[in-house]
């Protein structure tokens, strides 16, 4: 049972605003008829995500998100849009005919199932989002310890994946 004293108003309000922005942005990604608008909405979503990460005291991930996702991936997307000669401005050819008739039910079904499960499963579980008692440096240290010791193998694999991706992308996209 939620007691009034336990509700942290500020965090909830913050979360609410950011969540709204994210959802609206997401909806724009999938419903917009302008490719560039969709891309930019995606940027908004990702920024919102970064803000949420901060709320969740995952500062390192938030920063990585902004650097990598927004900074690199979205730029990549925009380059892709440009290089595939996407129509700038309104484009009528972006949606499958009757695509929503198939997509909406599936999405809604999935949403329904997942919400039901989540609500049923994690009814009153709380997480602490206050900044008190959060030692970011220690947390980062612990994070780096994790990455380079416990999860060193995935780290190495990941590096190979990135290498392969880079080389692969170059090979794929070469002109000759």
């Amino acid at each position, binding site marked *: 049972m939620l007691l009034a004293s336990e509700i942290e108003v500020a965090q909830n309000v913050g979360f609410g605003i950011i969540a709204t922005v994210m959802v609206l942005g997401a909806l724009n990604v999938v419903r917009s008829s302008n490719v560039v608008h969709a891309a930019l909405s*995606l940027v908004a979503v*990702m920024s919102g995500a970064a803000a949420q990460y901060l709320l969740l*005291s995952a500062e390192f991930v938030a920063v990585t998100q902004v650097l990598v996702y927004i900074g690199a991936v979205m730029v990549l997307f925009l380059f892709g849009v440009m290089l595939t000669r996407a129509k700038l401005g309104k484009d009528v050819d972006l949606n499958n005919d009757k695509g929503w008739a198939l997509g909406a039910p599936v999405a809604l079904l999935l949403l329904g199932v997942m919400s039901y499960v989540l609500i049923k499963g994690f009814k009153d579980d709380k997480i602490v989002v206050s900044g008190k008692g959060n030692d970011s440096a220690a*947390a980062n240290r612990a994070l780096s310890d*994790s990455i380079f010791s416990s999860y060193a193998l995935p780290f190495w694999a990941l590096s190979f994946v990135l290498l392969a991706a880079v080389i692969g992308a170059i090979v*794929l996209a070469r002109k000759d």
Partner: protein
Amino acid sequence: MLINEFLILGAVLFCIGVYGVIARKNAVLVLMSIELMLNSVNINLLAFDRLNGGNDGNVFALYIIAVAAAEVGVGLAMVLLIFRNRKTISLDDLSEMKG
């Protein structure tokens, strides 16, 4: 804060991403929808990490971001190649696998 707030947010974003994958014809837009889904997964992971203590979720989220970056790189390279060959990235026209 209820954890459910984050989780449901993640679920909503995921489902919107699913809708996007199904409904969008442009290949780049489909890839964007996939990014949506990956982001929702990240939110999920980090929320659970906050619930349970530990930092495995953080690590995993970082790895997802890295993989997503790689994937988008390769994916877009392919889209470019298809565009170069077919002059279209409309998934309707790219249905060679029909039948």
